[in-house]
Structure formats: structure tokens, C-alpha cells
């Protein structure tokens, strides 16, 4: 239908985009991970010592492990918030649906940074939460662990990523044909049985997509730990950032990035596989 010349012409911009902003940076990152730093200068000396350091120094494994734990907590918390919310909106919100949907989505338009700072003012020693607790005489001095802890990181990331979990689940629930729910009732299932036997299986692809969003985005997050994490809430992306910044060890930073990339690709692959397993068309 279209000439060959036309087809190759329109494929240039996307190909250029992928090459310039995806393949090239990844190639550079991968190359850096195999180089070394000698006396404050990056030398193009091919070696695997960065990867050896990564596996031999327990600090990196510890931070990576903590990062995964935080990402898993964020995933679970945002699923626990996002699924019931999506369920309510899809099946029981009635005329309030449109308004509630907007209320969930609007925060996505507010800068991440603003939301992070908002949590800082809520959780800090002089913050809103501590002031409130003291006003009620529940505590008598500021509670320190609200801010600068893994807890604070999980809280902020859950707040930020719950809409990302909500959206695919909501879409999946909205797509369940309503006659299926009537058929379930007609065959003798009450609402609890209908939920577990029909609604949950049919919304599983959305749930997996949401969980993948939350986990992968949390895994690479560095702003939340920077703002509210403190030393005990440091995540792997903060390590990478400092290696590329103050520590000036780009090769080691690149090696860690490659490691995160491999984990992420594995997770996406797994999620894709599971979603296919649960897709019914």
C-alpha cells in the first residue's frame, strides 16, 4: 500500500530515537562497567573487577537487599490500597465514579518533588504528625523514626505509586463483562464466591501489571530515600548516584546499574509471562 521509500522514511524517527536515547546510553553504560578508574581518571582498560567488587563487598548486597525489601513492601502496600479502591470505583461508586477517578489521578500531575517535601513537613520532628500527636498528649516528645527511615521511604513511595497500581487494576475490573457476574449469581454463587471465583481471576492481569509498576519503579527510585530515607533508608539508586557524583567511580556505578537493569528485565519478563498465563481472550 505504501512505497518502500515512504516506509523507510517514516521509520527513521523512531529508529533514531531508540538508537540515540536507548541503545547508545546502554552501550556506554555497559562499556563503562568494564573499564576502571586509575588515579582519578577513567581508563579504557577492559576488566571484570567492578563486577567482582559488586559481589565481594557485602555493602552493595546489603543495600540491594534492602532496596528489594522496600520495593516489595511498597508493592504490597499499594496493592492493598489500590485494589479495594479500584474495586469500589468499578462496582459500587455509582455516580461518584468520575469524581473519585479524577481524585486518584490528579496527584499524578503534581511534581514528585513537591509531594516528597510535603511528606517531610508531615513526618519531621517539628512536623504536622508529631505536633498532632503531642497536642493529643499521645506522645510527649517528637517521635524520631517517622522521618529518615525505611518506613518513611515505603510510606512516600506507596503514596506516589498507588495510582500506578490502581489504574491497570481499575481497567481490568471495568472490562469484566457484567453478565458474567450475573451468571455467577445465577449459578448459585453469593458475592464472596463471585469475587474469588470470577472477579479476582479476571483482574489478575491488571493486578500483575500494577504490581510490576510499583516494584520496578520503586527499585530504581532515588528521590524518596534522598528526601526522607536518611542513612538507614538508602537504596541502590542512591549508591549509583553517589558513585557517579562525589565518589567519581563511574565504572563501578555502571556495573551496579547493569545489575539493576538485569534484575528489572528479568522481572518484566516474568510479569509478561504471568500476564500471558492469566490473559483470557
Amino acid at each position, binding site marked *: 500500500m505504501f512505497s518502500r521509500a515512504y516506509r523507510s522514511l517514516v521509520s527513521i524517527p523512531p529508529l533514531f530515537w531508540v538508537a540515540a536515547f536507548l541503545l547508545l546510553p546502554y552501550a556506554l553504560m555497559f562499556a563503562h562497567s568494564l573499564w576502571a578508574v586509575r588515579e582519578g581518571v577513567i581508563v579504557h582498560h577492559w576488566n571484570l573487577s567492578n563486577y567482582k567488587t559488586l559481589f565481594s563487598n557485602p555493602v552493595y548486597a546489603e543495600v540491594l537487599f534492602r532496596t528489594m525489601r522496600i520495593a516489595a513492601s511498597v508493592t504490597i502496600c499499594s496493592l492493598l490500597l489500590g485494589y479495594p479502591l479500584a474495586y469500589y470505583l468499578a462496582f459500587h461508586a455509582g455516580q461518584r465514579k468520575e469524581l473519585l477517578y479524577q481524585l486518584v489521578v490528579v496527584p499524578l500531575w503534581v511534581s514528585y518533588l513537591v509531594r516528597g517535601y510535603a511528606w517531610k513537613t508531615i513526618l519531621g520532628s517539628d512536623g504536622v504528625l508529631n505536633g498532632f500527636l503531642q497536642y493529643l498528649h499521645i506522645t510527649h516528645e517528637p517521635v524520631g523514626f517517622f522521618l529518615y527511615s525505611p518506613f518513611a521511604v515505603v510510606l512516600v513511595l506507596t503514596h506516589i505509586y498507588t495510582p500506578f497500581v490502581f489504574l491497570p487494576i481499575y481497567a481490568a475490573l471495568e472490562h469484566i*463483562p457484567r*453478565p458474567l457476574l450475573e451468571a455467577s449469581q*445465577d449459578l*448459585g454463587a*453469593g458475592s464472596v464466591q463471585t469475587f474469588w*471465583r470470577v472477579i479476582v481471576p479476571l483482574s489478575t492481569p491488571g493486578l500483575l501489571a500494577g504490581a510490576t509498576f510499583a516494584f520496578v519503579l520503586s527499585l530504581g527510585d532515588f528521590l524518596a530515600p534522598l528526601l526522607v530515607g536518611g542513612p538507614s533508608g538508602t537504596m541502590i539508586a542512591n549508591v549509583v548516584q553517589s558513585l557517579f557524583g562525589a565518589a567519581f567511580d563511574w565504572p563501578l556505578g555502571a556495573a551496579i546499574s547493569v545489575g539493576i537493569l538485569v534484575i528489572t528485565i528479568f522481572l518484566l519478563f516474568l510479569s509478561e509471562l504471568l500476564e500471558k498465563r492469566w490473559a*483470557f481472550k
Partner: protein
Amino acid sequence: MSASPANPPEQDTAESAALLEVRNVAKRFGAVDVLKNISLSLGAGEFLTLLGESGSGKTTLLRLIAGFEQPSSGEIWMSGARLDLLPPYKRRVNTVFQNYALFPHLSAHDNIAYGLRVKGTEASEVSNRVEEALRMVKMQEFAGSRPSKLSGGQQQRIALARALVNRPQLLLLDEPLSALDANLRKQMQSELKALQREIGITFLFVTHDQEEAMALSDRIALLRDGALEQVASPREIYAHPATAYTAQFIGQTNLLRGEIRGSIASCGALCWPVEEADGPVIFSLRPEAIRICPDGQRQTSEVKFRAAVRQQFYSGSTELLEVDCGSGQTLRVRVPARGPLAGEHEFVFSMADAIRVEEGTKEVSSKQITS
């Protein structure tokens, strides 16, 4: 919802065989009266069809019986107990949905097993009964297939098996054949009818297709704008339509509008003696009740007229003629296939075949709706 009567309803002998009774049921959606004072009873083992155009309320009535909607007033009784107060999952009623509503994440086998498993039936009994149901609809080899891998007709069979495996007292079928192509539809009609005879379960079937209703039903309940127009057996409703609407909806007919004066009915160019009081009148005259009369001879009970053939529609064994009997009065005549016709001919029909019908705008009272 209206208050339930203090005493259980007294049932006379005619009604005691009734499985389902719909009593003065009305349904309003906002300002719209979707159903107006419907009363209908269904005998055990009967095949009753709710027939009507879209928007006539037939699906709503089915949904009230299934329990997906609540009546605005009136009651529904089944086997001597109130049905309309039960949630759908407690009713011994199963439904075959219009687009089957098979669970896409379950195999054909598991779709059929759903109702049994939900009720906590023992695994061995589940597999026995599912097997039996699959055999009944001739789908054993598709037990493991997901609905998306099945054709429309196969999905239809699974939907039927999924409902019947629960051994309902009453099976509701909501236009179950409307998504199938014409040939498959005919085949499924015949299988459905055979199945219903075999298992003896009461069927309440919804359709807008009058031919389907005629072919399948023991009785037809014709709905019009939320009210019952006529309830009768297919033969009865065809031979003696109560209203002009029924006569036109069930099969083809000629509606002859005219008046009776001095024991003579005159409708346009046609007139014949009747023994009825004076006044305006409508007769229904089926096209096949009129025949060509080549020799010009008529019996005393017949009406003869001369008319010009305007159109001729050939349909194999018969052909339909549109004839003009003067002053623009057009009649449809169905005759055995006989080759091209033109010009004027003599036609006759028996006076007994001109059935007097009502205008039918008023609501039909419930006493006309006896089983």
C-alpha cells in the same frame, strides 16, 4: 413492593399444576413503565415463549424471574413459595444468557462445574454430572477448551449444559439463538426442543422471532409495550388472534377495517353477511385463506371478489401475490406456486376465515390470560 397477603394464595385445581406464577407484576425504571400489571402462570414441563419486539419488556420480565431486578409491585411465586424475595443465587432457576456469558478463564468443563462447585458438591459427583451434561449437549471432546476456542454454536451448548447441570426447576433462555447464523439456528431450535422434551424441565424462552416462537413453544405470551397482548398456543394464537397487533405480529395477515350495518360486514370492496351487532370492525384474513377461483364458482359460505395482480413474490412452494381489488384496497394472497400471473382474476375466501379482532390498544385483563 406490595405487602404480601395475610394468607397463602388459594389455588384452585386448574392452577395447582402451575410451577411459576407471576401475579400483577409491574416494573418501572424511573418514569418508564417497562412492565404493566403482568399476570402469567407456567405449568410444570411447559415450554412457554415470551415474544415481543425490542422494548416490549420481555427481557425485563425474565430478569425479574431470575432475580437480577426487583418488581416495583406484584409478586412472583414458584412451587408455592415467594420467589421474588430470594436473591438470585438462592433461586432454583437457571439462565442461558443472550451472549452465553461463559467464564473466559474456565474451560468448558469448569464452566459447567461452576454451579455444582459453588454449592460444595462432592468432587466425584461433580465430575459425573459434568460428564453427563457434556454428553447431553454432545460436547465431550471439548471439555478442556476455553470458551474463546469454541464457535458460537458450541458456546451455546456449553451455556445450556452449564445451566441444566444444576437441575433447575425452571430454565430461562434469553434470546439464546439470536447470535447464531440462520442454518445453525434452525438446527439448535430442533435440538433445544428435543432436549426439553427429553429432560422435562420447564422452559421460559425469550425471543423476538415469531417463527422461532411458533416452532418451539407449547404456548406463546405476546408482549406489547410492557403488557400481555395474548397468551395462547401457537396454533390458537395464529388461528384466533385476539387483536390486530397479534394478527400482524404472528405471521402475515390482511387487516380488513370496515363496519357492520344491518348484519352486513363491508370492508372496502368486500362485503359479506355476519350475525353481529352494528359498529366499526376489524377482520384478520390470512393470505393463505384466499385462493384463486378459476371457474368463478363459489360456495354459499364463501366471498368472491375480482382483483388485479400487482406484485408476485415467488418463494419456492408458494408465492405471495399483492392484489388490488379496486379503490386502492390491496390484499396479500398466498397461493401454491403456479407460474407468472397478470391481469384480473377471481378470488374467494371462506367467511369463517375472516377473524374478528380487537384494536388492542387497551390493556388485556388478567382473566384472558389463563393457561
